[in-house]
Structures are given as C-alpha cells and as structure tokens.
C-alpha cells in the first residue's frame, strides 16, 4: 500500500494558512514526495474561512482528493467545518489559543505559542505557523532540515531575527510531534533521482509565455487571472518584457493589439466580466488579423458570480464572443506542463494564423501546484511567421491567399506601409463598401480555420484505451477524471479517459477516433449545461449518454466522479 496523505490547513484569511503551506509543500517535494497543493478561499482579505490542501504520495499525483489525514486548524471554525472529513487515522494539530473545543477520540496536538517561542511576545502568528509546519513533519517522521532551509529562503529578507523565530518554532513543533504516536511515516518514500518542480498552472503558463518569446503583457487585475499577470511581472525585468497595468480590460486588449500590430509578441488576459469588456476588441483582432493571445481564467458567473471559485462555464462564451464569424483558436490546458506548452503554442498559432488565440484556465488550475519533472518543460520553438526583406511590387496587408493567411510585415521596417482596418477592407487595408470585396475578404479570413484545424490535436487518453466506458473531459478536469478512471479500474470497471486541450478549431476526426468503440460516453464538465457536449454534437454528431456536471464553485474530485458514475454507469 503506497502512501497517500492529505493535509488540510485551514483558518481565517490573514492567519497565515499560506505561510504554512508554502514551505511545507516544497520541503515535502524536495524530500522525494509527489505533492499536489490546492487552495480554496473566499473573496476577502481578512477573516472568513480558507484552506489549502497538501496531498503527498510516493507516486505521481494528478488531482486533489477528498478526505483529511492531518487537519491543521488555526481557528475553531476549521475544526467545526472539517472534522467530519478526517480519516480513520486522522490527526488534529491546532492553535491552542484559538481552538477550545476538541472533538473526542481524535489524537491531537495543541500548539501554544509560549512553548514554541518562549520569551518572545507578540509573535504568536509566526510561532504557530512555523510550529505547525514543524509539527506536521515531526508527525510524518521525516527530516526537518529541508524546511528549515526553506524558512531561511522565505524569510531571509525580513531579517535574521524573523528567521530565528521561524526556525525555533519549527524545531519545537517538530520535537513536540516526534514525541507523540504517529501512524504516518514517509520512510518508504525514496528520494527522487533528479530534482523535481512544484509549480502551479498559472506559474507554468507564465514560463511558457516567457520561453515562447512574449514581449508585452497588459491586463487589469481580476481573480483568478491576476496570478498569471503577477507571475510574468515578477520575471519581466530579467527577460525584457513590458508589463502594463491598463485602466480597464478594454484598454488592456487594445493595448496588446496595438503592440502586436507593431510587431511585439503580445498577450492579455482576464476573468469573467473582464472578458465581457474585451469582446469588442476581440472582433477587432479578428478583422484586423492581429495576432493576440487572450487568457480567460474562469470563475462561476454570471456577472460577479463567485469571484474566488472555479468553473468551466465560459467555453461557450469564448467560442462565440463577438459579432459575426471570424477565426479564432481555443486551448485549455489540463496540467501545468500542458499550460507551459500550450501557452508557447498559443503565441505561435497567433502569429502563424494572425488571429486571437484563447487559453482557458480556471481558479483550480491557476492556483494548484503540481509536482513535475524538469524534462516536462522542454525548450520551445518560437515561430513568428513574419515576412521580412524587400517586397516585389505593392505590399498588401490583406492579400488574398489560398490558405487565408496574408504575408505579415511590420510597420517601420521598410517602405511597405502596413494598413490595418476594423472596417471591411480591400487587400491593401483601406475601407470599402464593395460588397464583392466583402465576400472575398470574409472568405479569406475564414479559410484560415480549414488550414489551422489540420494541426489541432491535444488529445490525452488515459486508463484503458479500449474500454467501452469513455470519460470525456477538457481543461483542468484532466486530473480528477484520470484518477477516477484509475480508481474504477481497481473496482474492475475499466474506463477510458479522453481529455481535450485543443477545443477550437475542433479536431473532429481525431476526437471521433479517440471515442471509437465507446458504448457509454460520459462527458464531465464544471458547468451546468454541458458546453463541451454541445460542441461535440455540433462538430461530430456524437453526444454524451450521460453528463457528470459540477457547478458549485469547487473542483471535481475523483470521489465525486466515481460516486456520480455509479449512478449512471
């Protein structure tokens, strides 16, 4: 039986849940565990209830799961809300100054700040956070040194005194837990032969953008998109990227369009209502044939909805946003490594086909850290697809071509003038009322889809590839569905997961092939109506026999999927 432990750290916003989670997750990853760390939080800066889950195993993890083995409670509410999730081996670590009612029959350790940092006044938060971190490791019977070096890295810029307090409290917490009985031991976990990475979806996408030659990113803050903008901004100085916080989402997208027209590799992004504002300029990118990558990080709507929760409710929106028909691409990564690769690919697709390319993410994908191998982040090819050098004759920005892609030049790089227009236009870019030109130009733009669809794929099959029970999903649902398929196999119900990360133009033939032999097709989505199922039916004529949907703002879990499949399969 392999080790698979779930640690839940909960408290009010501002109490330091993240201060415990960060060093804990990373130190466990460095010791050879496969770690998956996810976050659940409310739309507030202080108070309320938030929790992080750190799942660790000796085998690769692709999903968070239900159940709690070690519950770390920084307040009473955390105990009340989560004690029912504790497993039979469950253990409670709590802040003794906050938690007064301890459930009976559960082994527990109360952390007292006066024990953790004797003689230090007013530093109860540091004491309890570092102490809890140490106590978890003590309970796991694993060395303390990796977390001490992480605490030094994390708090080094706050001065030696703060580092000392953290180290003292972590050491004392560790010693206290070591003195207690524990059913958990990581002794069977072998250290990794090569260093691994702990990285979130949005962090990986920021790296994909940077490796992919991103030069300008503009945006307006909005949860959950902001973490991607931040992750690029933190590295912008090293890599010569212009980061511009715009006055609103309308400015953000127009600014990126202006930069892209001029020749800088550009992207923008937003969430929910922010994308409502961007739709006006989405069509501008479409008709002006300006390359542009747009990240839409989903949260439940409509309108403000549930700002900090997760959703896959905007697939239909990004597929159809904007007036009339124009070509676009829609990609939706399922893991950080896919996020890295698809972000670099999105930048290439945008340049190659001169159109807007969407990257659909969500709060779960944005914030969840996966353990990855460095080899899963290979060097990427940067394809600008620009036309350079002298032209023969007059340059036409929108010249009619067989594949719909016109040679693209940059303004200021030669005597060829680059004339771009939001009006319907002649091949040289000037506005026109010639309706025959309109038809030819509209057809030219749409032809790009027929070319682009030939290079679309992005299908991942897991589980039993021949199983008649097929679980079709997209985007961030990959992990929970993949694990559900693995659990079903253990229960002698073979299942085939088919995951789509490239949704438009829809690779109908390859999807149909991946679904071949399906006797029971289940489509699983984090929305209320089955948006992928509609797309599937529209593009292939196939449709789900059953839908497994979830739209409460929390991510799928393997358990939720297995429970719901047992009702239909």
């Amino acid at each position, binding site marked *: 039986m392999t080790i698979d432990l779930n640690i839940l750290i909960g408290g009010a916003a501002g109490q330091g849940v993240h201060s415990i989670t960060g060093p804990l997750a990373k130190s466990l990853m*460095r010791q050879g565990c496969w770690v998956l760390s996810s976050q659940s939080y409310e739309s507030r800066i202080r108070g309320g209830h938030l929790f992080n889950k750190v799942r660790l195993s000796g085998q690769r993890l692709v999903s968070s799961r239900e159940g709690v083995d070690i519950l770390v409670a920084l307040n009473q509410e955390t105990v009340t809300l989560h004690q029912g999730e504790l497993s039979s081996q469950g253990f409670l670590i709590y802040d003794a100054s906050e938690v007064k009612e301890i459930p009976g029959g559960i082994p527990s350790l109360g952390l007292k700040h006066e024990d953790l940092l004797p003689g230090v006044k007013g530093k109860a938060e540091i004491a309890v956070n570092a102490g809890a971190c140490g106590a978890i490791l003590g309970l796991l019977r694993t060395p303390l040194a990796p977390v001490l070096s992480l605490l030094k890295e994390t708090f080094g810029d706050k001065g030696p005194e703060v580092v000392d307090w953290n180290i003292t409290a972590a050491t004392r917490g560790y010693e206290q837990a070591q003195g207690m009985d524990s059913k958990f031991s990581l002794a069977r976990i072998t250290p990794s032969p090569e260093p691994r*990475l702990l*990285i979130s979806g949005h962090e990986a996408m920021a*790296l994909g953008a*940077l*490796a992919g*030659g991103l*030069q*300008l990113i*503009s945006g307006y803050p909005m949860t959950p998109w902001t973490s991607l903008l931040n992750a690029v901004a933190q*590295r*912008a*100085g090293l*890599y*010569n*990227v*212009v980061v*511009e916080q*715009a*006055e*609103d989402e*309308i*400015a*953000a997208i*127009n*600014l990126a*369009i*202006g*930069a*892209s*027209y*001029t*020749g*800088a590799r*550009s992207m923008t992004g937003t969430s929910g209502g922010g994308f409502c504002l961007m739709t*006006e*300029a989405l069509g*501008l990118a479409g008709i*002006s044939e300006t390359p542009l990558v747009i990240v839409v990080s989903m949260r439940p709507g409509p309108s403000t909805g549930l700002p900090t929760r997760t959703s896959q409710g905007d697939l239909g929106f990004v597929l159809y946003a904007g007036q009339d028909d124009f070509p676009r691409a829609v990609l939706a990564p399922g893991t950080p490594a896919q996020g890295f690769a698809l972000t670099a690919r999105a930048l290439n697709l945008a340049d190659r086909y001169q159109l807007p390319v969407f990257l659909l993410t969500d709060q779960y994908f944005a914030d969840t850290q996966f353990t990855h191998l*460095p080899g899963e*982040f*290979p*060097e*990427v090819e*940067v394809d600008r697809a620009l036309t350079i050098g002298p032209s023969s004759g007059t340059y036409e920005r929108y010249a009619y071509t067989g594949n719909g892609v016109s040679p693209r030049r940059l*303004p*200021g*790089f030669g*005597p*060829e*003038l*680059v*004339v*771009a*227009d*939001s*009006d319907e236009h002649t091949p040289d*870019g*000037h*506005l026109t009322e010639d309706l025959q030109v309109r038809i030819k130009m509209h057809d030219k733009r749409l032809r790009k889809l027929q070319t682009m669809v030939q290079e679309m794929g992005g299908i991942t099959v897991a589980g039993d590839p021949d199983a008649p029970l097929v679980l079709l999903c997209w985007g961030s649902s990959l992990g929970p569905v993949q694990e559900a398929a693995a659990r079903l196999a253990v229960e002698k119900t073979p299942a085939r997961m088919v995951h789509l990360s490239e949704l438009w133009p829809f690779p109908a033939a390859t999807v149909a092939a991946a679904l071949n032999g399906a006797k029971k097709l289940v489509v699983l989505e984090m929305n209320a109506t089955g948006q992928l199922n509609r797309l599937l039916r529209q593009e292939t004529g196939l449709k789900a026999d059953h839908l497994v949907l979830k739209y409460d703002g929390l991510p799928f879990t393997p358990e939720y999927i297995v429970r719901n499949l047992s009702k239909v399969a």
Partner: protein
Amino acid sequence: MLPIELYEGIESAWCPGCGNFPLLKAFKQALAELELRPQDVLVVSGIGQSGKFPHYLSCNTFNGIHGRTLPVGTGARLANPELKVVCVAGDGDCYGEGGNHLLAALRRNVDLALVVHNNQIYALTKGQASPTTDAGQKTTLQPQGVYYQPLAALALAVSQGCSWVARGSATDPEHLQELYKQAIAHKGFALLEVLQPCVTFNRVNTYQWYRQRVYRVEETPDYDPENELWAYRKAKEWGERIPTGVIYRHPRPVLEEAHPALAAGPLVRQQPARPVAQLLADFF
C-alpha cells in the same frame, strides 16, 4: 522638406466642404516639413469621420474601433518607440466613448500626439449631441436642447499635468500646421484639439462662428504656457473668445523611459532567447 505628394491617400468620402479637409492638408504639410517618411509614421484612428483620416493619407495605419485609439497607440509606442505615433480621434470618440483612456493617457505620458477633431456633434450618426456640444443646442436627439454642460477637455488636461496642450482651428490652417509639427515633435503626451466645422449636422458652430471667436493665444502679452494657473484660465475660456495655440507645456518623464525592457532598444528589434532551464530555477 519632402514632397507632399508622398502622403496622398485614397479618395475621400467626406462631405464637400467638410471641416476635415483643412486638417488633412495641414497634417500632410506638417509631415513633409518634418521630413517624416510615410514609413516612419503610424496614424491610429477610431470611428467617426475622423476615423477615416489615415485612409486619406499615405502612412502606416491602424483604424481601430470607437474610443480606443489611445490604448492602441500606447501599445504601438511600447512595441516600437522608433515610430512616430499620432492618434486621431473625434470629440465623441475620445471624450465620450474613450474617456477613461484619456484620463489614463494624461497620467501615463506616453510619447505620442493625440489629435481630437472637435466638431461638437456626432456627424457619422447624423447629428446627436457630443460631449462638447454647447448646452442648450438643439439636436435630432435633444430637441429640447442639450442639458449637459460641455466637457472642458483642455482644462481637464491642464489640471492633470498633461505635458503639452494646444488647440487649433480649421479656420486658421497655417497656425494649425505649425501646431501639428509641434505636437508630433513634442516628447510626451501631446493633446491637440482641433475645432472643425461640420457643414452638414452642426448649423451653429460654423466656419463663420469659429472665425469670429478664435484667436492665437501667443498674441496675449507675456503669455507663458508653463504658468499652470494662467494655462488653466485659458483652457477654460470658451464663448465670445476661444484661444488657439499652445496653451500649456509641462515637461515630464515619458512612459517609454519608465519601462526597463525598452532600454535595450525597441521590443520589435529584440530577439528574445529565454532558455527554459533558467526559468525553472525558482521552482525546484
């Protein structure tokens, strides 16, 4: 001086006698005198009669959507500060639909020229009130007269420390040509509002109406455009007398200098090579 024929564009669809024609001529003249080749210039426009302006020129052109000239122009400047960028907008376009972008541009001080064709009416949509239509004026959509007071955009710009604020008039093309040259040459955000009669839909603010009122502010004895309070009073002056010329000058650092990424040259001339191994270092 370059030949003015270099800037000849496609045939215009403006009304005969449109107040835009003197602007087009003066603008071409200014480019020729500044010896800016068509390839050195990018004109960004929005929607409205002013949106067609760059089509009637020969230069790099981005004719975008209503109200959004400034963010497009800002992005273009950040990508390639070697391009001379001129944003052309109308009064509805810039002061109405794109108002938030004007506020941000005043704060950003990106090095581009914004030319606002102010005809005090929505002409393309046939005669509704614009943000600069005088209070009380009757229009197709406001038959009882306009209730709002007009936006004093130049006073707003002065109050926010805009680095260069001027007004020109279609009725004084020689003066306007000089202002175009200064606006394009100015380092920083230059706001040039141009009074421009709409001969079809604005029967109040006619050529004659403007001719009777506009004067050159530099003819005011001792006028100092770096005197903020004086500039503010001139920017608010509207009615019997309307000042034209450079109203305010306030040199400030420009946005392009604030972005360290641009120190290595224009983004479009950089070849980013970013080995993945270096990027992964934070995550081990």
